[in-house]
């Protein structure tokens, strides 16, 4: 197990280039704590898999260094990095039995039969594969095959880190949940450094102590699931995390007063020295918006109710203020009549973004 450090890593698939647009990964610096559980979250094509392959050595970065416990491994081939990686689609050795599949990484490293056997049996029990141990792997279902892939990743106890590249994509939802808790359990038990790539936010937020959000080859925020939800540092994180995502609406700003289309909102913080030509946006989670009946004079923004989606425990209300659309999450809609309402902001959870970056003001 090891601390993994990335120093000024950048990668371009077309080789070294001066043009920053050629880079799938733009310069990033990051340290993964020994024994931490991390999630790499971001939309498809944002460079998550590239980053993972650089850590495992399947790719050599165009620029920068990879360090394991302060040892430079940038040029070291995958086999010598002692790292485990699990891929999106099951990779199994067709002609081998489940047992042989699981034992393969140990066998290649010259472990004896006496060492291998108890370990394989223990792991197979954990993954629920024990009754298929001696059948050929190719006859199993996709679920079971992916369990074998996971097993081959988890079989070595001394690995520097385990990398997961969207490993649960092909798995049934019910089993997905089970395997995820199983992984968490193994993490607690053995203290592996785990890095989990996904584009599914629930998966990232439930798995990881710390989430790294990537967007177009750059890291936009590193933080706990809570921080990502409460104070997204970039509007992209606001959109991407949460369902529905954060409401982000252009506004004008003067001290602690924000105006959206001429309607004023009094904020809890005061913002000074905002550049004149900057793009200013107000961001608020649907969970921190409320609707009040239209007759409550003077308070909130007068909005039109466009649509109500009842999704069980709560309702998502889409409201419009002229051209601007807000999503509001409410558990109860009692007292609301007609299709107009007043929109109220929870000002302690309302953020201001200047050129897509979060800014902090002075407490009033």
């Amino acid at each position, binding site marked *: 197990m090891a601390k993994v450090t990335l120093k000024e890593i950048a990668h371009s698939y077309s080789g070294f280039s001066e043009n920053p647009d050629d880079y799938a990964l733009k310069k990033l610096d990051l340290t993964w704590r020994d024994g931490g559980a991390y999630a790499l979250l971001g939309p498809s094509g944002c460079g998550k898999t590239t980053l993972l*392959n650089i850590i*495992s*050595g*399947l790719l050599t970065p165009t620029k920068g260094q990879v360090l394991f416990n302060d040892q430079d491994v940038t040029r070291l*081939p*995958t*086999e010598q990095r002692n*790292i*485990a*990686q699990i*891929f*999106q*689609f099951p*990779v199994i*050795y*067709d*002609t*081998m*039995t489940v*047992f*042989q599949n699981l*034992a*393969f*990484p140990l*066998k*290649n*490293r010259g472990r004896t*039969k006496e060492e*291998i*056997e108890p370990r*394989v049996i223990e792991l197979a029990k954990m993954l629920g594969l024990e009754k298929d141990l*001696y*059948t*050929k792997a*190719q*006859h199993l279902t996709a679920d079971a095959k992916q369990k074998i*892939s996971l097993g*081959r*990743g988890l079989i070595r106890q001394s690995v520097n880190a385990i990398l997961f590249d969207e490993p649960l994509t092909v798995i049934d939802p019910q089993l997905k949940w089970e395997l995820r808790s199983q992984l968490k359990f193994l993490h607690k038990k053995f203290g592996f450094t785990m890095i989990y790539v996904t584009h599914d936010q629930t998966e990232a937020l439930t798995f990881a102590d710390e989430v790294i959000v990537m967007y177009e080859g750059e890291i936009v925020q590193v933080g706990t699931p809570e921080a990502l939800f409460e104070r997204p540092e970039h509007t992209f994180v606001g959109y991407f995390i949460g369902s529905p995502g954060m409401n982000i609406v252009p506004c004008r700003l003067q001290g602690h007063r924000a105006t959206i289309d001429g309607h004023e909102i009094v904020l809890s913080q005061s913002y000074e020295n905002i550049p004149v030509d900057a793009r200013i946006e107000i961001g608020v989670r649907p969970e921190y918006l409320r609707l009040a009946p239209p007759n409550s004079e003077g308070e909130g923004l007068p909005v039109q109710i466009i649509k109500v989606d009842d999704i069980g425990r709560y309702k998502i209300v889409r409201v419009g203020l002229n051209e601007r659309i807000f999503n509001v999450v409410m558990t109860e809609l009692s007292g609301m009549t007609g299709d107009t309402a007043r929109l109220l902001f929870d000002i302690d959870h309302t953020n201001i973004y200047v050129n897509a970056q979060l800014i902090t003001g002075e407490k009033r």
Partner: protein
Amino acid sequence: MIVKQTNQKAWFMVLPVFLVVAFSAIIPLMTVVNYSVQDTFGNNQFFWVGMDWFKDLIHSERFHSAFLRQLMFSGIILLIEIPLGIVIALAMPKKGWGVPVCLISMALPLLIPWNVVGTIWQIFGRVDIGLLGHTLASLGINYNYTQDPIAAWITIIIMDVWHWTSLVVLLAYAGLCSIPDAYYQAAKIDGASRLSVFRYIQLPKMQRVLLIAILLRFMDSFMIYTEPFVITGGGPGNSTTFMSIDLVKMAIGQFDLGPAAAMSLVYFLVILLLCWVFYTVMSNIGEESSNGGA
């Protein structure tokens, strides 16, 4: 009471296929069957002889030796072409400008007509004017495929390897290209050696295309006619008289229609049987589940 009538019109839909198959396979085959149970002395007069030709054939020394020669030939070229084809396919580049260059140069021998291939090697190997034959002769090596049976065999085998290994290469290469990158990546992660990658990833993934390659090469080599006929004409002596050459000698050279027909049928059934055996054995290789542990 309503009787439900079965619509029999659908049979007419099958008729075109039936006619095509009848003219392409059934009628020609039945003609051969017809010849194989009769004897003729010319003048279009035929006599019923029953199974006599088949009995003769089974006890015929000539048939036995032609059959053995044929088996040996197919065996040798399979043993050379399949491994060689796999090795070349493994060595071929997976991307870049080398891919089209390799593919085209591999496809070239396959585009040359059989008798042209025969002629090329016939001249190539000649001691008086052929590049190969003359060079070997000036090096003091006694090589003359018109007199020495071993030289004749070597020439024909090398020619077949030259002509057909690229078919195996192309099939094996197609099989290799269909293996997703993730398998090689996983093998690196698992610390597998180059040999293990071949043994556990590449070979199993190539199994289906190799089955096709073996079947095609077996059938083709078992029926080989044109090239040895052009190069050696079956000689020296009878040393390269393979089954098809023998058959043609019998049917057209000696005009023994009955025995030739009987031999054709046996020949056909042998190919069918051996192909079935190959197919069954090879598709079972990956299927049987082993019960061993680590």
